[in-house]
């Protein structure tokens, strides 16, 4: 349950950040593309993030205390690093809700959704396994990992919405996404390798088979996503083949969300025995 709550929280905040960031980019770089009517989707993602974020706190509190009551949850929220960052995340999400209701502050929504997404990095495995005990190193690489994954997955969701409304400037949008996504994926892979190496190689102990199996599933899916992205960028886009691009983008997004759920599980597993 804890892994599921964690995975779903990341799905919601990755999509919230990525869709906000790419929509912001579209508005500033390609003003001829009319804004998407995506408010219901954003509200749904915000609600999902609030519910799963709160469930994550409750379940983590129960796991830490090996008991469950309101006092345990309060102590977790106020007296632990995880809880203090949780309060920061909830404040960021409530800020997004306020801005959505007021229909303003689009750039601020990008910033707040980035905060809601990256704050869990401070209490991640990567932060705990930082070189020489400097938790900030692992926290920063994990935050970059989350933000770049968010841009990729959330951007794909925006592209699919544009495909659905038969956007006349689709190729321009694809080209813009492709340029930024290439940088994002490069950073995503680099930070993933650094995190994986510091968690598994920079520590004493034997790697857990379950952890390695989940990591293997994640890597295979990410490799498949990168393969689809390469085909889209270098084979289909030059030929203006929008239909297969849309199909591949939908497959990439689905695989991406499965990867995030697997990552939610990885965060709960003991990497080393």
């Amino acid at each position, binding site marked *: 349950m804890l892994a599921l709550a964690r995975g779903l929280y990341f799905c919601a905040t990755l999509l919230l950040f990525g869709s906000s960031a790419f929509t912001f980019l579209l508005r500033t770089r390609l003003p001829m593309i009319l804004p998407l009517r995506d408010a219901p989707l954003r509200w749904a993602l915000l609600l999902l993030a609030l519910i799963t974020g709160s469930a994550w706190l409750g379940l983590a509190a129960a*796991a830490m205390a090996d008991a469950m009551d309101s006092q345990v949850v309060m102590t977790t929220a106020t*007296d632990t*690093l995880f809880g203090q960052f949780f309060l920061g995340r909830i404040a960021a999400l409530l800020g997004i809700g306020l801005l959505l209701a007021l229909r303003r502050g689009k750039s601020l929504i990008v910033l707040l959704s980035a905060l809601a997404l990256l704050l869990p990095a401070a209490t991640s495995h990567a932060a705990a396994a*930082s070189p020489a005990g400097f938790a900030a190193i692992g926290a920063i690489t994990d935050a970059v990992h989350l933000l770049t994954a968010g841009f990729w997955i959330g951007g794909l969701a925006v592209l699919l919405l544009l495909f659905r409304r038969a956007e006349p400037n689709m190729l321009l949008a694809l080209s813009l996404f492709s340029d930024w996504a290439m940088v994002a994926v490069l950073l995503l892979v680099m930070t993933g390798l650094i995190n994986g190496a510091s968690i598994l190689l920079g520590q004493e102990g034997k790697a857990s088979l379950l952890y390695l199996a989940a990591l293997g599933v994640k890597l295979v899916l990410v490799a498949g996503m990168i393969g689809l992205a390469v085909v889209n960028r270098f084979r289909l886009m030059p030929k203006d083949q929008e239909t297969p691009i849309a199909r591949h983008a939908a497959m990439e997004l689905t695989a991406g969300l499965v990867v995030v759920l697997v990552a939610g599980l990885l965060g709960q597993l003991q990497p*080393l025995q």
Partner: protein
Amino acid sequence: MKKLVLLMLLAASPAFAHARLTSSDPAADAKVKTVKTITLSFSEKLEPAFSGASLLDAAGKAMPVPSSVAGKVITLLPMSLKPGRYKVEYHSVGHDTHRITGSVSFEVIP
């Protein structure tokens, strides 16, 4: 960049993703003559609200012992221990919220 990654990996000190016990004083299964302080050291900083330890005598009965949690260390301060076997049961929670439980036994000899 490659050099930076390699440097970071080579500079990595032993650390764990969860707060695991790395050492204790007295050590596990040690035979000691006197014990005034028991310290348990962990691989990462502990959450004091959810970490702690208790001292049990040979009969498995918990003894009233002052304890504190600070940084990566749990400290127990038994006033004096009579000869016999003792067990320290601990539960540790790091910033990653994972709870680990375990125990360390030692013996006080005359």
